[in-house]
Structure formats: structure tokens, C-alpha cells
């Protein structure tokens, strides 16, 4: 991939009825960089991630994500290269983990791994026939990580990455981020666990008052 930054947005503002979510966000993620994003509850981290994922159009601001200008139809073409894990798992509750992952890999243009191999890699090889509704939160998170192994995104967006994870599973986060960085992609990791995040990202910023500030050391 080229050396253009993975994320390069300036002046991003988002207004919702009765609230200004983001005021003036400047954010740059270089190729091969992982960025930690902190912020108090309700400061707009999730919304910012959804803007970077091209799922939300900002009210103001410009820039590019994976080279595509945000807020234009052109941005749709890079969507398959973006991986987003939100706080709720994107799983069909009545399908098994196997079936959920198989769905992803059959919709994916170029799956990097089979569904069962990905599940085995995150330690869910024995739970593939269990329905998502019957899995614990931590297991569902692991299944989401398996999805990232299948889709191999160039921009990895992790929301509340460490919630509900045991130490082994946080190793998976480290692996995923390391992999995307090694590929020359970028990652934005939202978390409240600053110590754990510090180990996997090169740089951290804080979202506060609708702006991005450098993280205090």
C-alpha cells in the first residue's frame, strides 16, 4: 500500500439534535501506526470511530480514510478494508458461531482464513456449534476477533477493546493490532484500560470537549 496516512481528517464536527458530539477533531494515523484513543464516558469516542468507518457522515470536516475522501460516495469503495468491532457483537443470535463466521467469509471478497480456522485461532474451536445467543460476552468478543482474522482489514477500529476479556484474550487484541501494523495498515484502539493499551500502541490521544488532545503521560 502507499505511504499516505491511513486516517487523515481535520476539523471534523458532528451535530445531533440538541447536542454537539464532536467540535473540531483533527486526527492522523500513519501507515503502520496504532493509536490509543481515550476519553470519558459519553465523550463521543464511539461516534468518532463510526465516522472513521464511513458509517456516519460528519456535519463538518474533511479528510481521507484509506485514501478515500470521507462523506463522499467514493468512501464506500474502501469499506471492505475497514474492520470495526463495536461494544455489542455483530452476531446473529440464533446462528452458531461457525455459521456466523461462515456468513462473514462468504460475504467477504477475499477471506484470508476459513471460518473454522479463525475460530480455532481465537480459542473457540470447541464452541463453533454453539449459538451466539448462548455464548458469554467474552466468547462473543473472541468471535468478533475471529471475524477480523477472516476479513483482514487495513484499518482496524476497536471500540472498548478490553471489556470482558481475560488476559489470554487481550493477547488476541495485541496480535490483531500487531498484525495490521506489520501489514502497513493502521489501528485505533478505544479503551479505558490505559496500561494494557500502552503496551500495544505507539501513541495515545484523548477525546475531550469534542477535540483531540495528546494523552497526558
Amino acid at each position: 500500500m502507499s505511504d499516505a496516512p491511513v486516517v487523515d481528517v481535520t476539523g471534523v464536527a458532528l451535530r445531533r439534535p440538541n447536542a454537539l458530539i464532536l467540535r473540531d477533531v483533527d486526527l492522523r494515523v500513519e501507515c503502520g501506526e496504532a493509536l490509543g484513543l481515550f476519553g470519558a464516558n459519553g465523550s463521543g469516542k464511539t461516534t468518532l470511530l463510526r465516522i472513521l468507518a464511513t458509517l456516519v457522515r460528519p456535519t463538518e470536516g474533511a479528510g481521507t480514510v484509506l485514501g478515500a475522501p470521507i462523506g463522499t460516495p467514493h468512501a464506500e469503495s474502501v469499506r471492505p478494508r475497514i474492520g470495526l468491532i463495536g461494544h455489542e457483537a455483530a452476531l446473529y443470535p440464533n446462528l452458531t458461531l461457525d455459521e456466523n463466521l461462515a456468513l462473514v467469509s462468504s460475504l467477504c471478497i477475499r477471506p484470508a482464513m476459513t471460518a473454522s480456522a479463525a475460530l480455532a485461532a481465537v480459542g473457540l474451536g470447541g464452541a463453533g456449534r454453539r449459538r451466539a445467543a448462548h455464548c458469554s460476552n467474552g466468547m462473543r468478543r473472541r468471535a468478533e476477533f475471529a471475524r477480523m482474522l477472516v476479513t483482514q482489514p487495513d484499518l482496524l477500529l476497536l471500540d472498548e477493546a478490553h471489556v470482558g476479556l481475560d488476559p489470554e484474550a487481550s493477547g488476541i487484541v495485541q496480535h490483531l493490532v500487531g498484525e495490521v501494523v506489520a501489514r502497513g495498515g493502521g489501528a485505533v484502539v478505544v479503551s479505558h484500560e490505559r496500561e494494557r493499551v500502552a503496551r500495544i500502541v505507539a501513541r495515545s490521544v484523548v477525546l475531550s470537549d469534542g477535540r483531540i488532545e495528546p494523552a497526558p503521560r
Partner: protein
Amino acid sequence: MTKRTVEIGAFGAMIIAFAVGLAVPPDAVQGDLQRIMYVHVPSAWLAYLAFGITMIGSVVYLATGNLRWDRLAGASAEVGVVFTGLALATGLIWGKPVWGVWWTWDARLVLTAAMFFVYLAYLALRRGVDGADRRAKRSAVFGIVAALQIPVVHFSVVWWRGLHQPPTVLRPDNPQIDPPLLFALLMAVFAFTLAYAALVRRRMALATAEDSLTDAPRPDEQVAGAAVSAPQIGGGRR
């Protein structure tokens, strides 16, 4: 034409139409009950016009993304539901003494009732959605779906009840209505249409004010997260 001119004109025309409607001689067949037609026919006409304008506003909004058209669609629907309701109510009131029943399963009645409920659903949808852009998109989609369906509703209802006597006014070669009565009817249609225009303008202005209240920037605006501060218990800030 300024807003004021339209409003004053509408007010004046309504008063004239009211007076003319009561002053013209009674109809040869229907007697004084004919006077109900001077409010019923224009209301029914506006029910259709308002729906047409809502459809146009929805289509142009989706094509251009200009919120003005969405406000036109919404305003026209709200004013339209008022006139559709009036058309139904006056139809019932006319039907009771003439036919002996409030309601009959006449094709036009059923169609008007269906439109009334489509309007109500449209307005309920608008009320349910927060945010001008989101509301505009969703209601425009419903406005277009409804507009596509209305002709089908029309034909299916007409076929269902069999064809009815066509309107008697619009045949200049064979006027079946006395000139003074025709004048009263046309005056009423004119006055009601002007009133519709004035009301839609008012409603659009109100919509603009409401949107700027909820969506526009404010000097003391709170940014998301400002509402959340360090907790008072549990050792405070980490």
C-alpha cells in the same frame, strides 16, 4: 408576494366565500343542504392538492437534499390532514340528511378515508424521528411510497365499488349548475386554496424555527461528555 399579502388575501377571500355561500339561492334539488358543498368540495380538492405537493416535496428533497423541500412536504401534509379531515366530516354531515346514513361505502369516501390515514401515518413518522436530516430522508421515502400507492388505491377502490357519477361541475358545454351557485363554489375553492397556501407558508416558517432551535449551533452549546463529570463516590477521579 409577501407572506402578509397571501395571508390577508386568504382571510378576505374566506370571508367573501363564507358570505357568498350563505347568500346564494338554494339549489333546485338539494335546497339549502347544497351549501355544505361550498365547504366540502374545496376541502376535498385540497386533500388531493396537499398530497400532491407532499409527493413533489419528497421527490425533490431526495434529489437535491435541500431541507426546504422536506419542510414543504411536511407542512403540506399537516395542512392536508386538516382539510382531509374536514372533507370527511362535511361529507358525513351532508350524507346524514340526504342519504339517511352518516357513512356509505362510496368509492370516493373510502379513498378519502384511506388518504386520511396515510397522512396520519406520515405525520406520526415525522414526529417519531429526531434530527432534521434523518427525518427528512425517512419521511421522503414514505411520502414517495405512499404517493405511488395512492393511484393504485384509487383504481382498486373505484373498481371495487363500480364507477360512480363523475363530478358535475367541470362540463362547460352542459352546465348542470346555476351560475350563482357555480360562482359560490368556485369562490370557495379559490378562497380555500389561498388559505391552504397561507397555512403551508406559516407551517414551513414554524418548521424552520423548530429546526434551527434543535439543530443549529448555540453559543453556550454543551459538547457531548460535558454532561458527565467525575463521580462523587468511590474515590473520585482515577
